[in-house]
């Protein structure tokens, strides 16, 4: 066990700094995907309750597709599809050069698509839990539709949706591990490299699991605090 611990050291002989960097990459990717997915999910949820049937249809197609596809397939479609797409556009414009999409960007787009699809369903059911009188109260106060949505409805929606969104955040955090397959130096890739070089795969993958556990546990504490904070008005 002594040698295992030296492998976790910093500097040239240990992999501690590389793995710490991987953890940073994982956390950054998840944190960067969150706002993108939330905004997209919010817009989708609004579209799904529109009176316009075409808008509902378009939003439902989106959800059906990205909830049904495995994250890995979505990721490869985005990763290779974007590269081929940009290459074709460049060729059409007369520029002949191969493009390499950053794996971080591809991962962010793919995870954002999946997250927003799930988040929209969670937000939709939260929207449905809010009674019509809230909109009417907003109208009678002279607020415009956008103001009512932003200042009266959205805070309540987030309070109701938070447990579901929290679960989805955990899923997002775990899904980031898949982006290591297209070369993102996250926790799993960095520990995998260390495992291959040192040959002690069990130790390094156990470290990877422990780090993910750390992230998910820390998240659940933060989410629990947020839930309590958002419920502070409901004390009886």
């Amino acid at each position: 066990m002594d040698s295992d611990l030296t492998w976790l050291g910093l500097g040239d002989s240990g992999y501690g700094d590389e793995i710490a960097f991987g953890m940073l990459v994982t956390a950054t990717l998840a944190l960067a995907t969150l706002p993108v997915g939330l905004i997209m999910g919010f817009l989708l949820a609004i579209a799904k309750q529109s009176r316009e049937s075409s808008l509902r249809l378009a939003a439902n197609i989106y959800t059906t597709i990205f909830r049904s596809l495995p994250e890995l397939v979505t990721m490869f479609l985005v990763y290779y599809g974007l590269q081929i797409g940009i290459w074709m556009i460049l060729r059409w414009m007369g520029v002949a050069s191969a493009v390499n999409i950053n794996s971080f960007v591809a991962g962010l787009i793919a995870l954002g698509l999946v997250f927003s699809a799930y988040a929209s369903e969670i937000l939709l059911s939260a929207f449905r839990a809010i009674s019509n009188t809230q909109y009417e109260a907003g109208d009678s106060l002279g607020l415009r539709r956008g103001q009512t949505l932003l200042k009266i409805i959205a805070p309540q929606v987030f309070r109701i949706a938070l447990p579901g969104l929290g679960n989805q955040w955990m899923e997002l955090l775990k899904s980031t591990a898949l982006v290591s397959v297209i070369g993102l130096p996250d926790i799993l890739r960095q520990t995998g490299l260390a495992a291959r070089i040192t040959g002690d795969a069990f130790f390094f993958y156990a470290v990877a699991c422990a780090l993910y556990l750390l992230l998910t546990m820390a998240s659940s504490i933060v989410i629990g605090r947020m839930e309590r904070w958002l419920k502070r008005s409901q004390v009886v």
Partner: protein
Amino acid sequence: MGISATITSPRAPPPMTPRPWNGARILGAGLVILWALIAVALTVFLVHRWIPAYAAEYGPRYLSGVQTTLTLVVISVGSGALLSLPLALGRMSKRVVLRKLATLYLAFFRGTPLIAQLFLIYYGLGAFHKQLDEIGLWVFFRDAWNCALFAFTLNTAAYQAEILRGAIESVPLGQYQSAAALGLKKFQAFRKIVLPQALIVALRPYGNEIILMVKGSAIVAIVTILDLMGETRYAYSRSFEFQSYIWAALFYLVIVEGLRSLIVWIENRLTRHLKR
């Protein structure tokens, strides 16, 4: 002719006011057209790129990949269900040690990515090659397929245990008391009164778990198993045809949507007695 006709003579309904082309309608129509264009573009792409040799070589492989994926999911969800019962009971147990152990198991398997668990078992257990060989388990863990089955079973057992626990706890206390009043023994009451009611609550989450396993199973392609995703990666690496991934997406879409409607059908069928 009733009296109403003499009081108010029948009139034609008021004319329909044409729906205005407001922002939402324009946006909705635009987005639907965009989806339609994407569908047309994909169809044109697939037809244009239709290579008989490609279809002949990889078509059967895709089908066998679908079979592998479904086999993996069926076996691991089934054995996970068996394992989830003791886990759920342990999680609800009054004995602290048992409860702590079950909680630890659940926290580990639900808090880490499935792909990391798979790597831990597939690559990691190689380090214990000698010890495993001594107890005769190395033959089992040498094979990527067995490792994947093992990892998936342990993982889905954790999720299923939580589903089961939630469902069992949703059965009201009165059910236990009336079972006791009828003179049923504890185990009888659990098997005949509590479990059937709990399983109806658990139906929807179970369905979601199966769908998550189908989607999650795509990662076994990375440890060399030729499931649907594995065959896709094989086809792409040999032909460099982007259509490989589009076909995979279509296959997954059909499988998952088919499963989803099957689950809805089963749920409607099993809850007939609860509908008015």
